[in-house]
């Protein structure tokens, strides 16, 4: 539920007006404590300004002083509630459709357009009801909040995340659009600097997707046809698909039974004279056993490429997994812990040569305009996606903590009928997924579905059994742990905004 405050109740609260201002103040207090979302239509701000100004002019004769106070009041208010965006299209539609009050209609219309479950908080008995939207008096909203039934649980809740940072997103997108710097604009440089600061890696180079990030890493390492790269069969297809796209051979090694990451103790047995690299995946957000993997790589003179598509911000012995291996990659796919609004990715390295090559290769291998040193690709991140990521990155450390708190709550509440994910010592996970193992997955998923709780399976079939990899000649039973886990694994809703009440509802449905 999102409260959209009408002009009258906000002026009441700001000026201690009327019989009901304390009720509105209580609602604003709840918004400030993030118990509920509070919004105001951008359309209302100038009206609030005029009303405050006119009212205060009855007490204060110095207009400049009045305006200063009014500005401060509204500024303070907008630290608590957020402004609903409004486009020229919203205005034109409202002009066409309104029945009795244009301003009311705009408020209702944009509230419906931008918010999933809005309620207008107003004292106005005649609020234009042309749009089918709930309008409640501040006194009644309080009661409504107390009695509200459980809202639909969202799997990743990107919409709520967006609503939290909408002013920064709007500002950043608008800046890119205004400057028309759509390709390799300033925001790319700014983001790469911030990614370097965040990860501790010497170089952060953005690119068009997590898949392109893996390709760039292998291109920089000059992976050749028939080279072998050791990786996990229990991951998203892109990991092995990119190896195959390079005409190299993915060589699978089974996974650990507890972290579901590649089992480092089984890697050496898979090494041949053709092996060039090891590609561990930080599945569900947790790094693999990097000390063991690095030691094997060092011993056999192999490179390490970390597929960190799900793990941006996770750590291994105090270092982010973007700052481990020869090259580390990540994905900014929207559902990832740090996601943009389309495809996006990045590569990280401390190696000067790799960095230089990957910078060129993402722009068709060019070292200066229309001069191409390498065969490359059109693999740049759009400036507009960088602008979105810049807005999101500010909140990301806090969101990681919130995800970790959600995971802890799940682990505490779920009983032994399920196998909970674990985080190994000296590692941290960013919890891209909270994936449990259950014996009767279909039944549990159906129970949750009936309760309105979304789930997913990451991943139902290991890669060695996929049709596209039949040519590798792996057989069922080849990787028993991966096969067993893929039959039992299921992911529960995971996002920074899951409340304890929601987690209780999910757990209750699993235990039922």
């Amino acid at each position, binding site marked *: 539920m999102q409260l959209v405050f009408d002009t*009258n109740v906000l002026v009441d609260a700001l*000026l201690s*007006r009327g019989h009901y201002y304390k009720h509105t103040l209580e609602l604003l207090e709840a918004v400030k404590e993030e118990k509920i979302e509070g919004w105001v239509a951008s359309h209302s701000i100038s009206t609030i300004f*005029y009303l405050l100004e006119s009212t205060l002019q009855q007490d204060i004769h110095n207009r400049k002083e009045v305006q200063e106070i009014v500005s401060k009041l509204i500024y303070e208010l907008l630290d608590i509630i957020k402004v609903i965006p409004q486009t020229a299209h919203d205005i034109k539609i409202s002009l066409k459709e309104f029945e009795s009050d244009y301003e009311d209609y705009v408020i209702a219309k944009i509230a419906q357009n931008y918010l999933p479950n809005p309620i207008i908080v107003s004292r106005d008995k005649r609020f234009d009801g042309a749009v089918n939207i709930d309008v409640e008096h501040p006194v009644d909203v309080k009661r409504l909040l107390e009695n509200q039934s459980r809202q639909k649980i969202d799997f990743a809740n990107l919409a709520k995340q967006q609503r939290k940072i909408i002013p920064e997103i709007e500002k950043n997108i608008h800046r890119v659009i205004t400057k028309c710097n759509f390709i390799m604009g300033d925001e790319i440089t700014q983001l790469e600097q911030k990614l370097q600061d965040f990860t501790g890696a010497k170089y952060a180079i953005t690119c068009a997707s997590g898949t392109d990030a893996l390709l760039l890493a292998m291109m920089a390492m000059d992976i050749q046809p028939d080279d072998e790269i050791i990786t996990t069969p229990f991951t998203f297809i892109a990991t092995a698909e990119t190896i195959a796209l390079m005409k190299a051979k993915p060589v699978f090694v089974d996974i650990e039974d507890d972290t579901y990451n590649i089992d480092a103790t089984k890697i050496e047995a898979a090494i041949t004279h053709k092996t060039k690299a090891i590609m561990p995946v930080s599945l569900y957000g947790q790094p693999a056993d990097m000390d063991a993997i690095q030691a094997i790589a060092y011993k056999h003179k192999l490179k390490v490429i970390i597929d960190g598509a799900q793990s941006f911000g996770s750590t291994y012995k105090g270092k982010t997994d973007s700052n481990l291996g020869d090259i580390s990659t990540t994905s900014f796919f929207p559902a990832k812990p740090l996601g943009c609004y389309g495809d996006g990715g990045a590569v990280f390295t401390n190696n000067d040569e790799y960095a230089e090559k990957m910078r060129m290769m993402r722009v068709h291998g060019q070292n200066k305009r229309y001069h191409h040193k390498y065969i490359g690709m059109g693999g740049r991140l759009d400036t507009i996606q960088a602008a979105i990521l810049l807005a999101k990155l500010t909140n990301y450390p806090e969101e990681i903590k919130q995800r970790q708190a959600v995971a802890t709550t799940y682990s505490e509440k779920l009983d032994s009928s399920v196998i909970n994910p674990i985080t190994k010592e000296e590692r941290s996970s960013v919890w891209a997924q909270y994936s449990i193992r259950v014996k009767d997955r279909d039944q549990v998923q159906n129970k949750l579905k009936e309760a309105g709780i979304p789930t997913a399976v990451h991943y139902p079939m290991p890669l060695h059994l996929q049709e596209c990899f039949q040519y590798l000649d792996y057989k069922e039973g080849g990787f028993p742990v991966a096969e067993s886990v893929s039959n039992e694994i299921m992911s529960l809703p995971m996002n920074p905004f899951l409340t304890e009440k929601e987690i209780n509802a999910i757990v209750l449905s699993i235990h039922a």
Partner: protein
Amino acid sequence: MQITIDIEDNADNKDVVNKILTSLEKYKNQGVKIRKPLFFYEDEVDDDSNSKEHKGSKQAPLNNSVGDTFNKILGDYARERVNVSIGEDRMLLQKALWDRYGQ
């Protein structure tokens, strides 16, 4: 042309409405073009009370509460204001807009 309408200090809302309407009618009859949009708020001047529950909370704002923050900004001008109505707000708004754009 700007017309000033004298309103007595103790005039109630209905007096104000009647006075404005009478004045506007008078000037209209004299051929003065009235540009100010007319809003008949006569039926809206009472305190709005569409709530099912009318009692307001009596406690003072807590320290560092939202209300306390607003009052700190208002400083000496922080006080409870009564007799609020949508009609009054519209009148104030019209006046503000008229002062700014209507002349």
